[in-house]
């Protein structure tokens, strides 16, 4: 609270970026966790909530209507407030700068977020995703892979999880030796095991090979990985970095495996750029997204110039290579980059999505993030900018992972149990710090923070709201759903993800949602099916009775006669339609992606505005006016 210099400013104007006429006047409040803008217009209670932890930039900007305060958020929302008094603006600016950049993890929102949940319930939340049962699902431990206790106290590698699977033949000395020869002690360990052909995806950090160093144990470790795949006599080593970067690392005593020193390995570079390149690329892309009325050429050239889609393609290309090696050739793969927590996590997890339909389900996808990102020590605190820290550590690596999966859902619309909303919600909460899952840089950090005792888990939240996240086109027995996904990575297969990067620019999204419509239809179909089967049951019961009655018909029981035709009457179509078809198969008042109450996020919801689709266009709604004017503006600018 001590950071709030000014808790309330009146007569603040929230500018609408796309159509300035739609700007709203109200009061801005600062609380310990949120900035809240309340529109003061009569009759409408319009609130915009912005979580401090989602703010990644606050700046002053001179605009036509005076000096304004611009908030850039990590979920790609952009808010612009005009504050009448310069001094107030300055106070708000300084307060927000401090509030949005906490200095210690303890200040994060997840420790303050206290929904009314009992302690045992909270533990159940955390037990919802359990990696042991995930490895068990893969068929581990087995004759080739064993659970190793070496890192139980995070002594071998402080950034690795405590439970790791290693080749059966890897002895503790071999593991210890290998870990000393790898950056941050991150020795080769299992990420995904393909039950069907014993091929595995393993991950590590780069070897400390320098120009000529060797390590017998590391060579033995790779040998053990190779032996764990009895049907194959070769092991692929995939270095996800561009070759030049890897060579440069040799000068620092790091580097990559020399094929001559390791027996039966095939070495391969993949050319994914480093965190700095990715950060700049996303920044450039966001600048393009934020252009007010770009022409198609501005947009496409900007998108090309940012290089973003090229990087997404590079990640997917690498994942496709690995999925192919594992599924088609039956060859195990060791993946690494430099430290093995950025590109390695991306490539391992994307290839898992390609390889195993389980990871394309709601639950499986959560497990996958838990495994390849959270447990293997992707540095969320640094990469997601949770705290005031080194800006060079920030990078949208996890964004790229989510985007790769989204690109796949675009190519295979029936293969995923979850929808775009699910991915966007996960993205939102990785940055919101509302849940404990993405706090800290590794498992050890989280243990020290007692995350499970003090915070809540996103996974059980998502699960209990899963109805919102189901892809209505998904069917477990669909041909697209089964087996390995073989996406094309031709450039034209990649789309710009407007749902994420332009999430808050309502004007650019489709006005009606096929998905919502299908969801309603699907629910109704299920209902109808249920009713039909219960009716059928009743009929068959009654028919049994009728039969027994008709057998006894000569016992002249009059009731039986009355009973039977009655049932037939009840079975007429009118009756079904009147009791079931009260709602038509279209989205009922389309729910917004996330509700402010549940998620404490921003957004203004006023009545008809949030209706999806046609309702939006109802004659006097400001929205249709806006869109019409947009087209005019665009036309003007194009002319």
């Amino acid at each position, binding site marked *: 609270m001590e950071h709030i210099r000014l808790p309330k400013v009146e007569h603040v104007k929230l500018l609408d970026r796309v159509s300035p006429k739609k700007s709203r006047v109200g009061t801005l409040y600062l609380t310990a966790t949120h900035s809240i803008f309340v529109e003061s217009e009569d009759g409408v209670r319009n609130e915009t909530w912005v979580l401090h932890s989602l703010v990644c930039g606050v700046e002053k900007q001179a605009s036509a209507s005076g000096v304004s305060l611009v908030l850039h958020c990590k979920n790609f929302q952009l808010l612009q407030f005009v504050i009448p008094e310069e001094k107030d603006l300055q106070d708000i600016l300084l307060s927000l700068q401090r509030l949005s950049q906490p200095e210690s993890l303890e200040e994060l929102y997840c420790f303050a977020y206290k929904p009314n949940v009992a302690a045992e319930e909270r533990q159940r939340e955390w037990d919802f995703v359990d990696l042991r049962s995930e490895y068990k699902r893969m068929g581990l431990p087995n004759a080739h892979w064993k659970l190793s206790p070496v890192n139980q106290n995070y002594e071998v590698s402080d950034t690795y999880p405590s439970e790791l699977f290693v080749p059966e033949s890897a002895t503790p000395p071999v593991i210890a030796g290998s870990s000393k020869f790898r950056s941050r002690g991150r020795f080769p360990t299992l990420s995904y095991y393909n039950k069907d052909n014993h091929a595995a995806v393993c991950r590590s950090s780069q070897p400390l090979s320098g120009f000529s160093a060797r390590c017998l144990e590391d060579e033995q470790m790779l040998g053990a990985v190779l032996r764990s795949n009895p049907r194959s006599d070769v092991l692929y080593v995939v270095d996800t970095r561009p070759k030049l970067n890897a060579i440069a690392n040799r000068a620092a005593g790091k580097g990559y495996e020399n094929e001559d020193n390791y027996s039966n390995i095939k070495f391969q570079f993949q050319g994914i750029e480093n965190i700095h390149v990715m950060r700049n690329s996303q920044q450039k892309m966001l600048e393009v997204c934020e252009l007010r009325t770009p022409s198609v*050429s501005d947009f496409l050239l900007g998108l090309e110039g940012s290089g973003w889609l090229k990087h997404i393609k590079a990640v997917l290309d690498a994942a496709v290579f690995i999925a192919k090696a594992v599924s088609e050739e039956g060859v195990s793969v060791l993946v690494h980059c430099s430290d093995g927590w950025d590109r390695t996590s991306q490539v391992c997890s994307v290839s898992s999505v390609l390889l195993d339909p389980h990871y394309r389900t709601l639950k499986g996808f959560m497990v996958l993030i838990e495994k390849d990102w959270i447990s293997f020590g992707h540095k969320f605190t640094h990469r997601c900018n949770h705290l005031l820290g080194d800006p060079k550590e920030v990078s949208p690596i996890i964004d790229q992972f989510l985007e790769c999966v989204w690109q796949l859902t675009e190519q295979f619309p029936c293969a995923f149990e979850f929808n775009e909303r699910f991915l966007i919600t996960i993205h939102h909460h990785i940055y919101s710090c509302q849940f404990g899952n993405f706090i800290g840089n590794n498992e050890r950090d989280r243990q020290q923070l007692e995350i499970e005792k003090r915070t809540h888990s996103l996974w059980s939240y998502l699960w209990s709201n899963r109805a919102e996240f189901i892809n209505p086109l998904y069917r477990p027995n669909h041909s697209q759903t089964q087996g390995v996904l073989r996406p094309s990575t031709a450039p034209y297969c990649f789309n710009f993800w407007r749902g994420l990067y332009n999430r808050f620019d309502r004007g650019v999204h489709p*006005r009606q949602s096929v998905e919502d419509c299908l969801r309603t239809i699907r629910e109704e179909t299920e209902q109808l099916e249920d009713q039909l089967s219960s009716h059928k049951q009743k009929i068959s019961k009654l028919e049994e009775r009728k039969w027994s009655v008709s057998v006894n018909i000569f016992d002249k029981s009059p009731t039986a006669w009355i009973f039977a035709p009655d049932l037939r009457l009840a079975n007429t179509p009118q009756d079904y339609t009147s009791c079931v078809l009260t709602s*038509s198969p*279209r989205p009922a008042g389309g729910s917004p992606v996330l509700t402010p109450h549940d998620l404490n996020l921003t957004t203004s919801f006023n009545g008809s505005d949030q209706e999806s689709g046609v309702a939006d266009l109802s004659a006097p709604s400001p929205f249709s006016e806006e869109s019409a004017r947009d087209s005019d503006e665009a*036309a003007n600018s*194009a002319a």
Partner: protein
Amino acid sequence: MEFSEHIKTANVEDVVLRQPLHPARKGTLCITGHHLLFSDKEDSSRQVLLLLRNIDAVEKSVENLVGYSSLFSFADHGERSGSSGTIIVKCKDLHVLQIDIPGMEQCLNIAHSIETLSNLNCVSEMYPFFYRPPNHSLDRQWGISTPEQFFRETEGLSFLWRLSAVNRDFSICPSYPPLLIVPKDIDDESLKKVSKFRQGGRFPVLCYYHRKNGMVIMRSSQPLIGANKKRCREDECLLQAVIGSSDKGYIIDTRSGQQSQQARMIGGGFEPKSCYSCWKRLHRNVEKGKTLQESFIKLVEACGDESNNMDRWLSKLENSKWLSHVQTALSTAGLVAECVERDGHSVLVHGSEGTDSTLLISTLAQLIMDPSCRSLEGFLCLLEREWVQAGHPFQQRCFHSAYSHARLQQESPVFLLMLDCVWQLWRQFPLALGFSEALLLRLATEAYASNYGTFLCNSELERCALQVKENTYCLFQALLKSVEREIYTNPLYESTDLAIWPSVHPQSLQLWRSFFLRWTPQNRHLEEAQEDIRNMIIEWGKLARR
């Protein structure tokens, strides 16, 4: 028949056909006056029948192996004569097939026949005149709507408007249909004078009546004011009659201000403020003609690029400018709709000839505003009215598509651009349009090569002269009647009375993959999804009816 003189080799055995999404197949190739027919050796039921008219370009490469075999006399070529050739056939619907033909001479013959037969420009010898599906007879009404019907069925229209037969013998305007809707106060004599003042005689006619407020969309060609600012009182009167009691109207000129200025130098021009004081003129540069054709060619070229390089793809996509054309068309149409629906004023749309971008804009504006043209029938009626009857020169515009090496003449994919824009609307309002993507794809194919007579010729006059209506079948009727009608309807359709305002932000516009990348495997998954949607609705419908 004289086709035969172009066919030296009619049949070739042991031909290998390679096409996207299918394994290579061996079989017999057969060429007829209108078709290329391939039948599979193993499974004769699997045939490929290709309309020669659909072929845009033929590329042949022959390899004379005779020379090699004499050098390597031990080479065992079996029955093969020692030479072979490959023909790559590129179709107007962007399908590309490769045919390997044993025998150099045969290969050259086939290629020559395809080239000649696919380029024949005599309309009365085209396939629609020979197409005779079983169980159909020709003595029916051709087309699905007439101007009379439209006039009769548009409520409120007859109060201030009338149907004029001034063009009954096509003498006033050769590219207009015989019947046209004009203001009631303007007599045929005036119309004759107005037509002399408009390029090609295309005087302002009504194409849309907005029931909600009685405002209209008119379309015409440019006025022939020329360098010395000619005037035509009757033209001014006609437009004044359109405005009626309202205070003003809008003229949407589909050329830039500069272009319409330049048009004066060659006798054309625009309505000057001084003579048309109640009309506010707005210029929007909607590309057409050669620029649009080149854009199409570049886009198709970009889609075929195999370098697998993201930067290259995006820059080629940008460089083609196709999506910019989509944006301009949609936003201009939005502007027209805004004038009529929101601002409550009538609009006159024209460019130069009034047969291309004018029709593009008036069609899209109607789709945005008018719920009745968003159903399957309504949309086809709209196309018949605004493109076929209104005289879009299909024959010239769709003679070649994006692959042809021939020198461009009058080709321009305006109709295709319209379909693309409709597709964008369909993406943004997936429940508001009664037809499916499959319909748009079918129309895009049929406009270039068809069994039906609908897109033959450049105008109603030509259709009459060649007796198209008496001797061919109408596509629109077939689409509505056919057993596949179901695949052309949108299962999610839920009619709405509201206008559907498209977003024209670059982020909202997408490449029409299912057309431009139709023959790629990825498209299959998307088709599957569409199929699933349809099935879900059917399932639901079945249950709901019980």
